[in-house]
Each structure stands twice: as structure tokens, then as C-alpha cells.
């Protein structure tokens, strides 16, 4: 931290004191300061532009940031500029420099480093007297400033300490090595006066002298030399490397053994002296002559053949090269490699282009190696369970393995091609150039580019901790999307589509096998947890929650990469549609259209397997299973058959060998005819179809041999209409399987597990469809109530129920029971609410309880209670007898005459009671009729019809729920219409009170109470009539019409 803060203070002080110290220098620029730092001045002089160019070079050279757009580069540039322009350093003082030079000399002398001290003095002296590139004269300011720069960079020259010394000493031996280079450079220019070697170099060790002649001789590839001389040169170098003495053998070796070009300072190979093959030298010469600061680098010369072979090796996955270098996963081109007939820039740009592909190949190869675990021959994802059991526990899951297998297959073909080229190269029969090779490989390279792109997005960019399910579905999705993407481009990317399609069909194999296993055997076998649906382990099959909570659907969101868990309860049918807008691209897209079917079929199958199928089908099925084709096989076969069969029709008219151009026209007309039959007039579509068929002819040729291998089938498929292919080749199989499974399940449930009977039983008891049985049950209760006895005893109720049910439905009597629930006392105030303690319960056995769940029973129970309340009111009204009154009237007749006066109002009262009774009866009967016939019966009929047509269990459950919701709604039990129910309950309550009074006998009546009852009833009645009429007028509840009419009729008669 210390140096930083110090520096900052300095900077701060500097920038603050800037104006004071450098006022002269800065006063002019002060006005333009902001623009100057921005480096944005429009009116720059050429001088400043020059300086900027140099500054950029400097930054590039020192920091290594190449890209000028880079933020770092811009930062550095700004920094450099602000330092160059606004500093407070003094100008260079030549005397000071001289002093420090002699100071260093002294120091070196003190350290008795005499030779170094001597060379130091000599060098500085020589430098000061030498010309600079753009400055004339000696010992100018420029000289001194350069020296001072070096002194600054060397540390702090004013107080050179002792620790600095060893480094300075080490620097000396380094000099020796570079003299050779220096001399070589001198060699390259043969024209002009040869400069004298500096005196101090003669003092250096003798190694350089010995190297000197060699390098001098060696470097001579020049235009003005004769071939003889060149021959001499090579002869001279030969003994150094080869010890073969005989000239014949040497000649043979020269022809047949590759020069070790990878060794540093390798001997040069002989080559033509024609101008064309010496472009590099010519160019170098030009650069050298024009730019005094041009500095020839050391170069490694190779031949084009060597470049080609290295290219081929690179593409085939070899990791050690000379020309290409691997740096932790990146492939780069060695800097100093040149060929004689190209400039180094040109060669470099070509090689960098190759290196990109090399890197792609390398990454793919590494992925393949990782997944296969460096197996020399990765085994194919073999069919059936042997494969999955073997590989199941290994970390790379099956989808990746399949993908790798597909990649590997592609690379096998690619490497064959490479080998062929290399063999041609070795044979040397024809000219092979780098550009020709690249041209030949270009379709392959394009494919590798596509593969690498898919690999990057599908595999490499997935963060390491991602669960397998996300990885697998992401990979499949990427492939799928890539196919769709390239597919939409059309003809331009047929190759890519064909390649990707074959990759996809291979990669999708594990998924389809999982699906197959699941929907055929009911067993979701997915040890690596890569499938988007996973079994929740803790739910056993024979649990009532099985249907809802067994499976988890992972829907992978690509943005956040987290998985949402969707419960299957929703996913069965509605979940797939709900919120599909935001999840559109997140699931495994290709399965999306049939996902519901897969889930349903899978679950149905598992359930079916666990039911004891009473049919003998079981054994039958297992025997068939051996011959059964897996979903994947079916898929591949139908892809083939689809393409072949379509191809058949054109082959009738045109033989396969004939030119495709002609057949295209013909087919187009044929297809146009076909389309016209279906009322489609689309020439573009027709052309596209025709093209599709044509491409498939290649496919047909390949497989018409008869012994086609299924695995290879998809390699040459070009599918223009990828989604169409899926729709016609994959989805029908799943669909068929789904219908079969679910049909079986429904059949078994209906037939063996008496689902329909249970549904009927629910209606019988809860909805009182078994009228006689339930009548026995409830009248017993009502009688008890009327006799003012306690009826809320569990034993009494259960006995009554058992008796009633046992007579007619003995099998149900054990399942039915009654419970009493305590209800909150606030609701107990009305007699009619007394019944609400009753709970009827029916024990539904597994698996029918999947359909008739306890939630359903709750709704049933609510309806049951309402019915019971209506029945109670009806019963209590029905059981009132006029004989109760006859006693009273008789008594009155025989009474005293003065009592006759009272008789009149009594008769009137009786009459009013009777009238009220009839009105109440009309009301209760209307309500009863409405609910029992208009609602329960007709809805029940609809329901039965729908149940017959239900295709799968989920649909059945939904139908059942909808049925329950409907009756619940229509019985006015909904919260929203609770005020209507409230009014009805009031009336029912009134009925009970009324019958209570009636039975209490004449004496208990009071005229006021009758008045009250009448007015209450009238109010409720009127309210209901208004409300219902409104509802009916609105037309939203057609079923209410009958109730409204009958109530209205009763009201008008009042």
C-alpha cells in the first residue's frame, strides 16, 4: 500500500504544482486542456499525430494490449498523454547526464568490474557521437534525453546501491549472445559499405568469431547469388547435421527424410532461387532499406508441405506441433514461422484462420475424451438395458454420451478425409497447396464451426454445478434450436442441417429410451437424473397421492438456470398450457407438444402395472415385448419410411439415374397436382416439396440396398421441414402409445375396479339418488326430532344407516358411516342448522380414491346436507295433519254460545294456518323439484356421458371435479350467492318453526306469531323471486329459470 499512497501524493502535488512550475510550458495548453486529454483535437499538428502514433505503439509493446478499442488501452493512452503533457520535470541537463555517466563508471571501477566499466565508457561515448534517425549532429539534447531515459529506467542512477550491481553484472553475459544476431543482421545486407564491427566486440569471447563465418555463409539466400554457390552452401551445412558419408545415401535421405525444421537453428532446406519463391526475402530487403529502425527477427523457415501436414495433424487432433502452439486450450500460431514465398503477415493470417478451427477441433476432442474417459474406442450407446446398466452409474450421463458418440462418428469421417489428403501429399503425385487443401476441407470446416458453436452454447457454457437434467435438456434444446435456425436459412445450410439432424437424432436417443421405458413398462429409469421428469421416491404407488405427487417436472429456465418444480397436479393437462408464454423455450422443446401425453401415459402405465390386472393380457404382453420395437427404433424407421415412401412416387415416373434437374420440374408438377387436390395453390411450397424429395433420393440410394443400419440412417437426411418430420415421425408413436396406455387404464379401472359403480354409489348416497334407502335413513332422524328426542347419537345414526343400506346394497353398508362434527355455536341458533353436524363418509378403496378424493367427498357432503335440510322441511310439512284441527273445531262446536264468539277468529286462524302451510309447501316442493330433477338428475346424466368418453385418468378426474363444481354451484352453495342460500334457509327454518307450532296444538298459537310468520315468508319469497328473476333476465343462469317461474307462480297467487 505504501508505494501507492506515496505515488498518489506525488501525483497530487504534481498536478497541483503544475501551473506554478511549468507555467510557461502549460499556459498555452491550459485553455485546451480538456480536449487535449480527450485526445480529440481536430486541429492537431502532424507532429502531435506522429507522437500519438508512437505512444500507441509503446502501449501496445509494453502492456501487450492489442485492441485499440479496449477500455484498458484507452485508459493507458489517456494516462500516457496526461503524463507527457502535464509534468513538472525539468528539461534534460547534459552536464548532469555526463556526471551520472562518470558516476556509474566510477561505481563499476569501485566494484572492480573493469571490462564493464570500460565498455560503459566506450559505449556512451560512441553513442553520443553517433547520428540519430531524425536528428543531425552529435551530443544533441536528444542524445542526452535518450540516455537520461535509460538511466531513469535502470533504477535510480544517482544513488546506485550495491544490490544493483549483481544485476548489472549479469547483464553483461547476455551481450555476448546477441552479437551473433547482430552479425547475422549485418550479413543480410550485402549491398553498401560493410560497417566496421565495433571495437568492443573484438574483445568479446571467441565463440562469436567462430559463429561468424557460419552464419555468414548460411544466410545467403540472395538474388544475386548463383545456384552453384547455393549448392555449395547446402553442402557445407550437411556435414553438421548428417553423418552419412556416401553421396548417394545422402541424396536419398535428402529426398526422403523430413528436415528437422522444429529444431532451433535448423539447417535451411534448398529451394528454387526464382523470384516467386523468394518473396519473403525481397520484402524483408525492402523493409530493411526503407526503415532504419526495422529489425529483422529470427525466423524458422518451413516448406508449404510442412505447413499443410501440420495443418492436417492439427485438424485431426494432434496436440504437439511446431507451427501451432497449444496454450492451455488455446491454439495459436508460432510467431516466427515463415515460408520463403510468402510474406510473414500473409502466412500468419492464413494460419490463424486454421488455428481457429484447430482450436475448435481440440475443444471438441477434449470433450469427447472427457466423456469417454479416454477410452480408445468408445462403445456405442448400445440398445436396451445392458448399456444403461453398465453406464448408468458413471458421471457423464447418457445424453452426453450419446452426443459424444455422434460427434465421434462425425470425426471419424473427418479424419478419414484428412488421412486421404495426407496420403496424397506423401505420394507427391500432384501438387498440393495449402489453399487447395483448405478449399477441399471447407465444407468440413464449416461443419466443424457449426459443431463448435453448438458445443459452446450447449455444453461448454453451462456452469459446472448444473444438475444433469438442466445440462441434458439444454443440450437438446440447443441442438433443436440450431436445427430450426439453420433450417430456416434454407438451401444455404443444408449441410449444417443434415449434420445437426444426425447429431440430434443420436443425442435424443437416451431421452427417447427413457420415455419408451416409462410409457411401455411404467418404470421411469433415469439413474443419472437427466430426464425432465423425475420420480419422487417417497411416494409409493398405492398411495392416494400417487397421481398428483409422484413426478416432478423440471422446467428449465435458460435465463436463470434454476429449475422450477411443477407439481404434476397442474401439469397433467392444464400445466402444459398455463404460463406457457414465459416457459416457451425453456423445456425440451421437441417434447413439448407431447409432454402431456408422455406424462399421462407414463403415469397410467405405472399405475396399470401396479394394479392386479385380472386379464390374462399380462403374459401375452410380456411375450410380445421381445418383438416390440423401441420408440427410438420406431422413430428412426418412420423417418426412413416417410422419406422413402414419398420418394417412391417420383421414381415411378423418373428413373433414379436420370438427371435430377429434369426430375425436379416433373416432381414439381406432380406435387402441384397433389396440392391442388387439397385446394392449396402455393408454387413455392410445391418447389420446396420437390426439392425435399430430390434430396431424399440420395437417402434412398443409400438404404435401398436392404441391409441398412438403423444407427446410420440419419446421417444423410436433409430435412427441410424438421418440425414436420417430428410431427409425423415421433409424435404419432407417442400418441398411439398414450391412447393405448390410457385406454387400458380406463378399461381396467372401469371394469376391474368398478369406478363407475363407485361414482354411482356416491350419487346414490350423497345425492340421495337411492331415494328409498336414504328415505329410511333420514325419516328415522326426522321422526326422532319431531318426538323431541335426542337424535345426535353416533350409534343410533349408524344403526339407522346400516339398516337402510344393508337391505338393498349390502356391499356398501360396510363402507358407509356417519360422523358427528361439532359446529360452532353461533350457527346453531336455527333449528335447521342442527342437521349440519352430520357428516356422511364413504370409504373409497384404492385406486378409485384417485378420482373420488376426500376433497370431492367434502363437496358431496355439502350437497348432501342441503338436500337433507330440504327433505326435512318437506317431511315436516308433509306430516302435518288436518286431524289436529278437527279436534279443536269439534270441541268448539260443543261449546257454550258465548264461546262461539271466539270461534270465529279461531276458524280464521286455522284457515290462515292452512293457507300458509300450502304456500310453504309450494315453495319447498318447488325447491325440492328444482334441485332433485332440474339440477342433480340432468347434471348427473351429462356427467355419466362424459365419463364414458374420458380418454385418460386426468381427464376423468377433471370431469369429476367439473361435475362437482357444477352441482355445488347450482345448489347455490357458492360463497358468492350465499345471500340466496341465506334466504332459502330462512324459509326452511320458518317451515320447521311452523310445523312445530302446528303440532304444538291450537292453544299455543297466537295471532301475532302467525302474522309474523306470514310476513317473514312473504319477505323472503319476494326477495327470492326478485333476485331469481333478475338472474334469469340476465340470462346467465338458464337452469334457474324453472325455479324462478315456479316461485313466481306461487307468489302471484298470494
Amino acid at each position, binding site marked *: 500500500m505504501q508505494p*501507492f499512497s506515496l*505515488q*498518489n501524493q506525488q*501525483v*497530487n502535488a504534481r*498536478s*497541483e504544482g*503544475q501551473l506554478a512550475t511549468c507555467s510557461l510550458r502549460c499556459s498555452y495548453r491550459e485553455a485546451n486542456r*480538456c480536449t487535449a*486529454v480527450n485526445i480529440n483535437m481536430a486541429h492537431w499538428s502532424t507532429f502531435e499525430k*506522429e*507522437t500519438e502514433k*508512437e505512444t500507441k505503439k*509503446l502501449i501496445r*509493446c*509494453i*502492456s*501487450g494490449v492489442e485492441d485499440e478499442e*479496449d*477500455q*484498458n488501452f484507452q*485508459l*493507458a493512452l489517456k*494516462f*500516457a498523454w496526461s*503524463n*507527457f503533457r502535464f*509534468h513538472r520535470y525539468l*528539461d*534534460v541537463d547534459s552536464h548532469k547526464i555526463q556526471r551520472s555517466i562518470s558516476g556509474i563508471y566510477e561505481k563499476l571501477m569501485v566494484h572492480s568490474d573493469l571490462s564493464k566499466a570500460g*565498455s*560503459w565508457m566506450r*559505449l*556512451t561515448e560512441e*553513442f553520443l557521437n*553517433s*547520428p540519430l*534517425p*531524425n536528428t543531425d549532429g552529435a551530443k544533441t539534447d*536528444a542524445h542526452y534525453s*535518450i540516455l*537520461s*531515459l*535509460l538511466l531513469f*529506467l*535502470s*533504477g535510480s542512477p544517482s544513488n546506485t546501491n550495491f544490490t544493483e550491481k549483481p544485476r*548489472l553484472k549479469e*547483464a553483461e553475459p547476455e*551481450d555476448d549472445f*546477441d552479437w551473433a544476431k547482430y552479425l547475422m543482421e549485418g550479413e543480410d545486407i550485402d*549491398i*553498401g*559499405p560493410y*560497417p566496421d564491427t565495433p571495437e568492443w566486440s573484438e574483445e568479446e569471447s571467441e565463440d562469436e568469431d567462430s559463429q561468424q563465418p557460419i552464419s555468414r555463409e548460411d544466410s545467403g539466400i540472395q538474388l544475386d547469388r548463383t545456384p552453384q554457390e547455393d549448392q555449395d552452401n547446402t553442402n557445407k551445412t550437411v556435414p553438421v547435421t548428417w553423418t552419412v558419408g556416401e553421396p548417394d545415401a545422402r541424396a536419398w535421405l535428402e529426398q526422403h527424410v523430413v528436415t528437422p525444421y522444429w529444431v532451433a537453428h535448423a539447417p535451411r532446406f534448398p529451394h528454387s532461387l526464382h523470384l516467386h519463391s523468394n518473396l519473403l526475402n525481397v520484402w524483408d530487403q525492402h523493409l530493411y532499406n526503407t526503415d*532504419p*529502425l526495422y529489425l529483422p527477427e529470427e525466423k524458422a523457415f518451413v516448406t508449404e508441405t510442412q505447413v499443410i501436414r501440420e495443418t492436417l495433424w492439427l485438424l485431426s487432433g494432434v496436440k504437439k506441433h511446431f507451427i501451432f502452439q497449444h496454450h*492451455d486450450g488455446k491454439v495459436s500460431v508460432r510467431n516466427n514461422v515463415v515460408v520463403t514465398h510468402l510474406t510473414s503477415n500473409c502466412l500468419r493470417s492464413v494460419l490463424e484462420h486454421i488455428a481457429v478451427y484447430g482450436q475448435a477441433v481440440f475443444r471438441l476432442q477434449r470433450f469427447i475424451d472427457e466423456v469417454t474417459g479416454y477410452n480408445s474406442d468408445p462403445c456405442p450407446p448400445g440398445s436396451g438395458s445392458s448399456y444403461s446398466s453398465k453406464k448408468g452409474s458413471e458421471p457423464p450421463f447418457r445424453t452426453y454420451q450419446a452426443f459424444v458418440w455422434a460427434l465421434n462418428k462425425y470425426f471419424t469421417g473427418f479424419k478419414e478425409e484428412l488421412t486421404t489428403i495426407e496420403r496424397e501429399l506423401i505420394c507427391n503425385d500432384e501438387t498440393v497447396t495449402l489453399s487447395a487443401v483448405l478449399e477441399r476441407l471447407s465444407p468440413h470446416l464449416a461443419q466443424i464451426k457449426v459443431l463448435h458453436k453448438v458445443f*459452446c452454447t450447449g455444453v461448454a*457454457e453451462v456452469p459446472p454445478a448444473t444438475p444433469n437434467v438442466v445440462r441434458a435438456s439444454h443440450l437438446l434444446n440447443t441442438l433443436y434450436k440450431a436445427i430450426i435456425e439453420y433450417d430456416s436459412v434454407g438451401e444455404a445450410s443444408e449441410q449444417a442441417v443434415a449434420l445437426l439432424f444426425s447429431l440430434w437424432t443420436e443425442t435424443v436417443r437416451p431421452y427417447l429410451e427413457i420415455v419408451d421405458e416409462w410409457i411401455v413398462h411404467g418404470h421411469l429409469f433415469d439413474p443419472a437424473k437427466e430426464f425432465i421428469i423425475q420420480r419422487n421416491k417417497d411416494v409409493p404407488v398405492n398411495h392416494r397421492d400417487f397421481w398428483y405427487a409422484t413426478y416432478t417436472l423440471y422446467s428449465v429456465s435458460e435465463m436463470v438456470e434454476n429449475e422450477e418444480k411443477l407439481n404434476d397436479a397442474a401439469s397433467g393437462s392444464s400445466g402444459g398450457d398455463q404460463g406457457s408464454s414465459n416457459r416457451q423455450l425453456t423445456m425440451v422443446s421437441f417434447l413439448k407438444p407431447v409432454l402431456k401425453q408422455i406424462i399421462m401415459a407414463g403415469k397410467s402405465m405405472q399405475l396399470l402395472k401396479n394394479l392386479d390386472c385380472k386379464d390374462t393380457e399380462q403374459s401375452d404382453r410380456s411375450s410380445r415385448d421381445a418383438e416390440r420395437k423401441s420408440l427410438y427404433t420406431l422413430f428412426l424407421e418412420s423417418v426412413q419410411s416417410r422419406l422413402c415412401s414419398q420418394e417412391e412416387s417420383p421414381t415411378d415416373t423418373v428413373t433414379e439415374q436420370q438427371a435430377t434437374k429434369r426430375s425436379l420440374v416433373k416432381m414439381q408438377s406432380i406435387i402441384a397436382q397433389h396440392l391442388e387436390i387439397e385446394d392449396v395453390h402455393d408454387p413455392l411450397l410445391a418447389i420446396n416439396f420437390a426439392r425435399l424429395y430430390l434430396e431424399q433420393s440420395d437417402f434412398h440410394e443409400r438404404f435401398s440396398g436392404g441391409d441398412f443400419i438403423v444407427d446410420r440412417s440419419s446421417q444423410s437426411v436433409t430435412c427441410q421441414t424438421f418440425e414436420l418430420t417430428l410431427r409425423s415421425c415421433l409424435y404419432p408413436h407417442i400418441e398411439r402409445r398414450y391412447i393405448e396406455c390410457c385406454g387400458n387404464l380406463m378399461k381396467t379401472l372401469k371394469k376391474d375396479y368398478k369406478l363407475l359403480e363407485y361414482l354411482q354409489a356416491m350419487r346414490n348416497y350423497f345425492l340421495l339418488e337411492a331415494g328409498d334407502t336414504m328415505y329410511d335413513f333420514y325419516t328415522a332422524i326426522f321422526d326422532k326430532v319431531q318426538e323431541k328426542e335426542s337424535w345426535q347419537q353416533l350409534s343410533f345414526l349408524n344403526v339407522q344407516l346400516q339398516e337402510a343400506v344393508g337391505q338393498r346394497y349390502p356391499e356398501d353398508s360396510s363402507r358407509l358411516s356417519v360422523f358427528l362434527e361439532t359446529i360452532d355455536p353461533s350457527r346453531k341458533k336455527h333449528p335447521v342448522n342442527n342437521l349440519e353436524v352430520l357428516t356422511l363418509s364413504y370409504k373409497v378403496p384404492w385406486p378409485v380414491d384417485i378420482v373420488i378424493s376426500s376433497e370431492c367427498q367434502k363437496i358431496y357432503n355439502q350437497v348432501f346436507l342441503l338436500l337433507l335440510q330440504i327433505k326435512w322441511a318437506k317431511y315436516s310439512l308433509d306430516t302435518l295433519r288436518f286431524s289436529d284441527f278437527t279436534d279443536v273445531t269439534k270441541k268448539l262446536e260443543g261449546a257454550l254460545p258465548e264461546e262461539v264468539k271466539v270461534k270465529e277468529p279461531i276458524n280464521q286462524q286455522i284457515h290462515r294456518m292452512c293457507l300458509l302451510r300450502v304456500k310453504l309447501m309450494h315453495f319447498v316442493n318447488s325447491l325440492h323439484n328444482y334441485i332433485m330433477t332440474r339440477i342433480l338428475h340432468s347434471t348427473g346424466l351429462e356427467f355419466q356421458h362424459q365419463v364414458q368418453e374420458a380418454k385418460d385418468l386426468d381427464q376423468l378426474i377433471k370431469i369429476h371435479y367439473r361435475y362437482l363444481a357444477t352441482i355445488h354451484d347450482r345448489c347455490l352453495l357458492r360463497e358468492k350467492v350465499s345471500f340466496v342460500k341465506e334466504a332459502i334457509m330462512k324459509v326452511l327454518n320458518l317451515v320447521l318453526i311452523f310445523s312445530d307450532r302446528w303440532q304444538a296444538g291450537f292453544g299455543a298459537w297466537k295471532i301475532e306469531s302467525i302474522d309474523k310468520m306470514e310476513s317473514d315468508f312473504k319477505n323472503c319469497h319476494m326477495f327470492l323471486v326478485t333476485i331469481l328473476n333478475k338472474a334469469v333476465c340476465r340470462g346467465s343462469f338458464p337452469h334457474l329459470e324453472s325455479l324462478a317461474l315456479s316461485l313466481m307462480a306461487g307468489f302471484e297467487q298470494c
Partner: protein
Amino acid sequence: MASAANANVNAVRETMDVLLEISRLLNTGLDMESLSICVRLCEQGINPEALSAVIKELRKASESLKKTVTEIGEGGTKPAEKKWLLPAFYIRLLRTAQTENENRSLQFGTY
């Protein structure tokens, strides 16, 4: 004429070689390329002390950049945007900006 020009070129080349030797002897760490850039800049009148300050700072910056890159390593497959994590660098720039009373917003790399 051509030979005269060549003579000059050679003389300059010689100078540069001498200079390179001096630079080696002083252990400045400059190679031929950067040395020739420096020579050109000095000739254009850039103050050598300022130039040396810039060079040192740039070296430090690229040093720390390399370090961060290797720290990030190959874990992330996507090559992350390389940022210079050099506070002094930014602070210095910021100071310059402040003393100049500018409202120019400097772009600092997001950490």
C-alpha cells in the same frame, strides 16, 4: 544518392545497436522495438522522465492484469472481459480529471 542514404541508415542502425547495448548494461528491460519507439518519442521532445514514469506504470499495470487473468484462470469458459485492476492508475486519472475541473465522466471498468 542511394548509397548515401544507405550509409545513413546503417549509421543509425549502428547507433541503435550501441544504444541497445547501453540499455542492456543498465538492465532497463527494453527490447529493440520499445527502444526504437522511445528514441522516436525522445526525439519528438517528450520529457524522458515523464516517459520513464509512463513505462514503469504501464509495466506495473500489465503485470497486475496478467495476474488477474491467471487468477480467473480457465474456470470460466467464456473469456471474461479483461480489466485492469489497478487502483493507482484510476486514482491518478481521477485526480487529473478533478484538478482540471471537468465534468467529464471517466469510464471505470466495473469490478
